[in-house]
């Protein structure tokens, strides 16, 4: 009866209902805020504010509802790595489109 398995100390994280309710209230508040602020003239900053609120909401959902804060390091690495690829997709695409009008095309 040899059991080679090592009884791994795996902490089962069970968040309280209060934590989830708090996150939900924060998410609903931020939804109201992003809607209200859209009617205010912030100039170029309106997009920045809208995205900052959206990113905050994403972090709340990912860290609490998707349990990323209790996940293994490998899972965290995969999540951050995925977002990095998305940034490469968006930023490298925009380096072309944003600068097209500003930098002349050689030979033209």
């Amino acid at each position, binding site marked *: 009866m*040899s*059991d*080679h*398995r*090592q*009884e*791994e100390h*795996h902490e*089962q994280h*069970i*968040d309280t*209902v209060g934590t*989830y*309710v708090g*996150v*939900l209230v924060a*998410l*609903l508040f931020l*939804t*109201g805020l*992003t*809607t209200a602020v*859209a*009617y*205010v*003239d912030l100039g170029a900053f*309106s*997009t920045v504010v*809208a*995205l900052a*609120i*959206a990113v905050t*909401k*994403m972090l709340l*959902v*990912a860290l*609490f*509802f*998707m349990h990323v804060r209790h*996940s*293994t390091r*490998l*899972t965290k690495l*995969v*999540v951050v*790595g*995925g*977002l990095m*690829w*998305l940034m490469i*997709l*968006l930023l490298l*695409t*925009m380096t072309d*489109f*944003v600068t097209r009008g500003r930098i002349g095309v050689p030979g033209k």
Partner: protein
Amino acid sequence: MADHSLTNHAQTESLALRVQFDTAAQQKDASQLGMWIFLITEIMFFGGMFAAYTVYRNWYPEVFAIASSSLNAVLGAINTGVLLLSSFTMVMAVRAGQLGQQKMIIIFLILTLLFGGVFLGVKAIEWKEKFDEHHIPGQAAFHLEGLKDYDQGHAQLFFSLYFAMTGLHALHMVIGVGIILTLIMQAKKGIYSADYYTPVDVAGLYWHFVDVIWIFLFPLLYLIDRHLGK
């Protein structure tokens, strides 16, 4: 077990501990990692559309602002709230799984289904409005009020992106509804316990992911420079 080499490794195979894993915790971690890798491919899938959106909004900012203001921001905000509520009930279902409360899993999954259904219903009403207002790209009668003739095509670009992005999102919701229905049927058989609730767990990850996509779609599609219209 017929194979004696396995007996040392795992005496009995169960849903919570398949033979190929050393511990139940390892199996759980592997399931979650696998789901996350799938979700990363989904991020890239939606990412292409977000890239297209960024390019065209950058080219036609005024047209996008006017077209965006023709959407119903109040309905959009309410629907965002409904979807966030469904995410809350979904995470409560996962919590019930962690605690091994079989009845609560079913109750919270049904609530999630309900909120998901409300979201899709409101979305259908919004799409119907677009048809009535002739804001469907490709329509011969397409006309967006407040824009000159040469900008009508650019407005069609906005609505193409609107329908493609909200449509793909809604498709993910419909698939999510199917997954939750399956989970409810499985949960009724009583196969989930505190030791094994992985399907509820990874379905939760999927549902929250779809929620996060909407969290970005709402301000990007509905809320561009709303103050201009006032």
